[in-house]
C-alpha cells in the first residue's frame, strides 16, 4: 500500500479573514419597524373586527474574536411593541449565542446555537408549504417568520455542540469531511419526562468536486437518569443511511439508502415498541448545454414504518391557532391556518424536532407532506430544469408518480401524482432595460386516488389540490418598485387521514372531505435605499371560500408598513 500523506486543512474562511482584520468586536444586525392593520368584512358583527399592531426591533449582533482561533457570536434583541411606550412594552432578549473556533488546527467546533442539516432522510427542514416559486411580494413576507424561527435554508436551529474536520488525501479521495454533533431536544420536566438528546455523525468522502459517498447517522434518545426517580422509560429513534453522487460517463448517479429504528421501553424496561423501516432512493441525471439544462429521473421506496424525526418534522405546526383574527364569521368558528398565516404568522412556526409525525394540511401537499422522507411512498420522480446562463429566464417541471408502499386500512394502495412547474422571466435582461421588470410563476397540481375494489366498501379516495403562484416585480423609478403577487390554493375531494399514536402507529382514520379555495392578492410599493435598507407599504386581500358551507366564507384585508435594515 502506497504511503498516503495526510494534509490537515482548515476550511474556516471567516477565521482566516478575521486573522487578517484585527478588530476584536464587530457589530452587525437587523433593525425593523412594522405597523399593521387587519380587518374582517363589515358584515361580521360578532367577532373582533380589527387588529392593529406594530413594533420596532433591533437585533444587535456581536462577533467577538478573543483570539485568532475562536469567535463568539451573539445577538441581543431590543424590541418595543407599539402602545408600550415608556418602557412598558420594551423587552431585551438574548436571541442567539454561539462559540466557534478551531482546535489544534485539526477540527472546527461550535457550541451553543447551531444550524444543522444533513440529508433529506436524516436531518432536514423541508421547505415551507404553499410555495411554488412565489412572488417577490410574498417572499419578503415569508422571510420574516422564517427568520424569526431561524429557518436558514433547510437547517434546523438547535442548541448543542458540533465539530467538523476535513482530511485531505493525495490519491483516490480528494478530501473527507467528518462531523459530529449532539444537541438537546427536550429538557426534563420535574418527574414527568426525561431529557431528550439528539446526536449524529456524518462522513463524506469527496472523490472529486462533484462526486462523493457519504455515511450518515442520527439518533434521538431519552436519558432516563435525568428523572429524580428510578425510571427506565426511554424512547429512541435511530436513522442510518449511505448516500452518494457519482459521475458515470455522461450521467451522474445519485441516491441514498438506509434504515430507521424506533424503540420505546416502558418504566419496567419492557420493550413496548420496536419498529424498523427502510428506504432507498436512486436515480440518474444529466446536465446539458453547459449545465443550463438538467434532467433527472429516480425511483424511491420509503417504507410505511420509516421514521426519521429530524427529517419528518414540519416547519409549521398545523395544530396551532392563527394569531390574526382567528375567530371569523357570525358563527364565530375558529379558522384553521391559511395562506395568510403561512406568510405572516411567526407563532405557527415550529422550531422543535418531534419524535412523532406532526399534523399536516393535505390542501398544500397530500403526496409528500414530509418531503422526500414521507413514509409509505414508492415510485418515480422526474425533473427537467433549464436556467439561462445570463439569468434571463428559468423554468422547470417535476413530476412524481407514487403509490402507497403498504395499504392503509385496506389492501388497495393509493396512487399519488404530483406535477410542479415554475418559471422566471427577467424581461429587463432580455431587452436590456435599465429598470427591473420580472415575472414569475409556479403551479403545483396533486392528485390522490384509490378506486373501490371488491374488497373495499367505502367511497373512493379522490382528492385533488392546485396551488398557483404568480408575481411581478416592476421598477417604476430608480430603486422604487411595484411588487404584485397572487397565490391561490384549491382543494377538493375525499381522503382518509391516518390518526397515529405517540409511536406513529396508525390507530384510526378520519374522513377528510373538503371543497374549498383560498386566494391572496398582494400589492406593494417598495423603496430600496440600498441593497440592505428597504421601506415597503403593502396591502393584502385574503379570502377563503368553503364550497360545502358558505357560512364559513370570510376575508381579511391587511395593510402594513415595514422598514427593514441590515447592517
Amino acid at each position, binding site marked *: 500500500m502506497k504511503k498516503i500523506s495526510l494534509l490537515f486543512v482548515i476550511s474556516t474562511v471567516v477565521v482566516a479573514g478575521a486573522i487578517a482584520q484585527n478588530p476584536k468586536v464587530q457589530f452587525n444586525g437587523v433593525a425593523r419597524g412594522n405597523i399593521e392593520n387587519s380587518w374582517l368584512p363589515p358584515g361580521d358583527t360578532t367577532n373582533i373586527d380589527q387588529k392593529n399592531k406594530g413594533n420596532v426591533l433591533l437585533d444587535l449582533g456581536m462577533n467577538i474574536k478573543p483570539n485568532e482561533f475562536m469567535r463568539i457570536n451573539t445577538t441581543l434583541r431590543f424590541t418595543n411593541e407599539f402602545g408600550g411606550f415608556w418602557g412598558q412594552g420594551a423587552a431585551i432578549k438574548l436571541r442567539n449565542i454561539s462559540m466557534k473556533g478551531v482546535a489544534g488546527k485539526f477540527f472546527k467546533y461550535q457550541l451553543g446555537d447551531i444550524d444543522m442539516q444533513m440529508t433529506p432522510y436524516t436531518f432536514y427542514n423541508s421547505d415551507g408549504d404553499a410555495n411554488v416559486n412565489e412572488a417577490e411580494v410574498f417572499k419578503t413576507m415569508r422571510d420574516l417568520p422564517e427568520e424569526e424561527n431561524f429557518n436558514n435554508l433547510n437547517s434546523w436551529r438547535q442548541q448543542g455542540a458540533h465539530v467538523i474536520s476535513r482530511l485531505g488525501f493525495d490519491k483516490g479521495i480528494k478530501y473527507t469531511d467528518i462531523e459530529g454533533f449532539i444537541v438537546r431536544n427536550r429538557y426534563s420536566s420535574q418527574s414527568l419526562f426525561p431529557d431528550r438528546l439528539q446526536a449524529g455523525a456524518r462522513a463524506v468522502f469527496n472523490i472529486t468536486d462533484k462526486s462523493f459517498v457519504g455515511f450518515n447517522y442520527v439518533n434521538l434518545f431519552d436519558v432516563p437518569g435525568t428523572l429524580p426517580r428510578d425510571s427506565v422509560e426511554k424512547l429512541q429513534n435511530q436513522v442510518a443511511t449511505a448516500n452518494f453522487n457519482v459521475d458515470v460517463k455522461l450521467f451522474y448517479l445519485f441516491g441514498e*439508502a438506509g434504515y430507521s429504528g424506533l424503540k420505546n421501553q416502558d418504566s419496567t424496561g419492557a420493550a413496548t415498541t420496536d419498529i424498523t423501516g*427502510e428506504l*432507498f432512493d*436512486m436515480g440518474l441525471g444529466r446536465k446539458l448545454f453547459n449545465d443550463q439544462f438538467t434532467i433527472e429521473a429516480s*425511483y424511491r*421506496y420509503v417504507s*410505511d414504518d420509516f421514521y426519521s424525526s429530524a427529517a419528518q418534522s414540519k416547519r409549521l405546526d398545523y395544530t396551532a391557532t392563527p394569531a390574526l383574527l382567528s375567530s371569523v364569521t357570525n358563527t364565530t368558528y375558529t379558522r384553521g391556518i391559511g395562506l395568510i398565516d403561512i406568510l405572516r404568522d411567526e407563532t405557527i412556526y415550529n422550531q422543535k424536532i418531534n419524535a412523532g409525525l406532526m399534523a399536516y394540511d393535505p390542501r398544500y401537499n397530500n403526496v409528500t407532506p414530509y418531503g422526500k422522507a414521507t413514509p*409509505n411512498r*414508492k415510485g418515480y420522480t422526474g425533473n427537467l430544469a433549464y436556467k439561462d446562463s445570463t439569468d434571463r429566464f428559468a423554468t422547470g417541471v417535476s413530476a412524481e408518480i407514487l403509490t402507497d*408502499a*403498504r*395499504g*392503509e*386500512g*385496506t*389492501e388497495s394502495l393509493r396512487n399519488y401524482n404530483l406535477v410542479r412547474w415554475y418559471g422566471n422571466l427577467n424581461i429587463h435582461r432580455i431587452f436590456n432595460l435599465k429598470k427591473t421588470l420580472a415575472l414569475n410563476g409556479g403551479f403545483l397540481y396533486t392528485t390522490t386516488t384509490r378506486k373501490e375494489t371488491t*374488497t*373495499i*366498501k*367505502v*367511497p373512493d379516495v379522490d382528492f385533488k389540490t392546485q396551488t398557483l403562484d404568480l408575481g411581478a416585480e416592476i421598477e417604476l423609478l430608480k430603486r422604487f418598485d411595484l411588487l404584485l403577487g397572487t397565490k391561490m390554493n384549491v382543494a377538493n375531494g375525499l381522503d*382518509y387521514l*391516518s390518526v397515529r399514536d405517540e409511536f406513529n*402507529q*396508525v*390507530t*384510526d*382514520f378520519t*374522513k377528510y372531505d373538503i371543497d374549498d379555495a383560498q386566494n391572496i392578492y398582494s400589492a406593494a410599493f417598495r423603496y430600496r435605499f440600498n441593497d440592505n435598507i428597504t421601506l415597503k407599504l403593502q396591502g393584502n386581500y385574503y379570502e377563503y371560500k368553503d364550497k360545502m358551507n358558505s357560512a364559513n366564507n370570510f376575508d381579511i384585508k391587511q395593510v402594513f408598513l415595514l422598514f427593514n435594515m441590515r447592517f
Partner: protein
Amino acid sequence: MRNITGFIFISLLLLGCKKEDPVGPTLTDLYGQFEIVEPLSHNKPDGVDFTKDSVQFKGEWTIVTPWKITIKGKRSGAVKTITGKGKTLDTLVGVWNGTADGIFFKLEECDVKLSFDNQSDIQTSSVKILGKHDYSKDGYIIESFESPITLTGGSYTTLNVRENTLDTIPEGEYYYHLEGTEPGQAATKGPASWFIGALPNPFKAKSTLGKTYFPFKDADTTTVYINFFVYGYGYPNTKILISAPEDDNGDGVFSSTTEDSYGYEYIVTSAGWHKVSIPLSEFSHSIIWIDDVPYKYGNNKKEISKMMEISISLVSDGKIPSPKVGCAIDFFIITKGKPL
C-alpha cells in the same frame, strides 16, 4: 462490479415490491356501508331463569359502530341498557344477567330494542323472565321488606307500614312507607333531627355473616357501596340516615364515647323511585351533640375493616317545621366492587 450493482438494485426493487398486510384498522369497519348481516336474536327463546342463567344476545353488522340494547319490562317498567362498540353482539358485552338500571325486573315479558349511533336501523326482540336475578349473589342484602316487618317508630311518626300500593315497586312485591311530622325547633347550635322511624335492628355482621366485622378492606372504601331505593312524595326535610360504627379497639364491642362512627345523610328530594348508591368513602365522621357542644369520638380514621353493623333510620331536618315528612324505601344492599 456491474453484476454486484445490478444485484443490489434488483434486491432493493424486490424489497420495495413485497406485499404486506395493511396498517391500521380496516376502513370498511369504520366507514363502510352499514348493513345488518345477522338480525337481533338471543339464546333463550323459551325464556330465561336468571337464578342460574343469562341471556346472550346475538347480531352482526358490517361496520364498527356504537350500539345500544334497551330492555324494558312490560309489567314492572324496569329498564336495562347495555352499550358497546363493535360489529357483533356475540361477545361478553352482549350478555344480560337479569339486572336493571333502576327498579328491578319481575317475572314478565320484556321488550328488547337494538339501536346504533348515527344509523336509523332498529332491531327488536323480546325475552321472557322465568326466574329473577338473585341479588344475594351481588352483595349483602340488609332488608328487602318482602317478609313482614315493622320498623321502629317515634313520637312524631304518623305512618309506619309495609305496602304494595304504588304502581311500581323496585324489588319484589313490597316496600316500606314511613311518614311523620316535623315540629320544628328553636334556633340552636348544631343540627337537630327528629326521629321518624328505623329498621328495628341494625344489620350486623355477626348475625348475618357469622363474623364480627364485615369482610371489607380499608383500601376498598371507595368501592364498597350502600345501595337502596327511595320514593319521594315531594315532602321537604326528609332524610335517610345511615350509620356505621367501627370497633376501633377490636374488642368486639362498640363504645359511642370512645370509638368512631361514620354516617351519611341522604336527603330525599325528588318525587318517584330513585336508586341510590353511596360509597363508604363519602361517609363522614358522626358528631354527637351534647348540650350544644359537638363531639367526635374515636381515632378519627375511617376503617371499614372494623365495621360491625349498619343502622338505617328516617329522620327530619329539625330546624324547619313541616306538616309532613316521609318517603318509601326498598331493598337495602351492600355491594363490593361496583354499585348496584
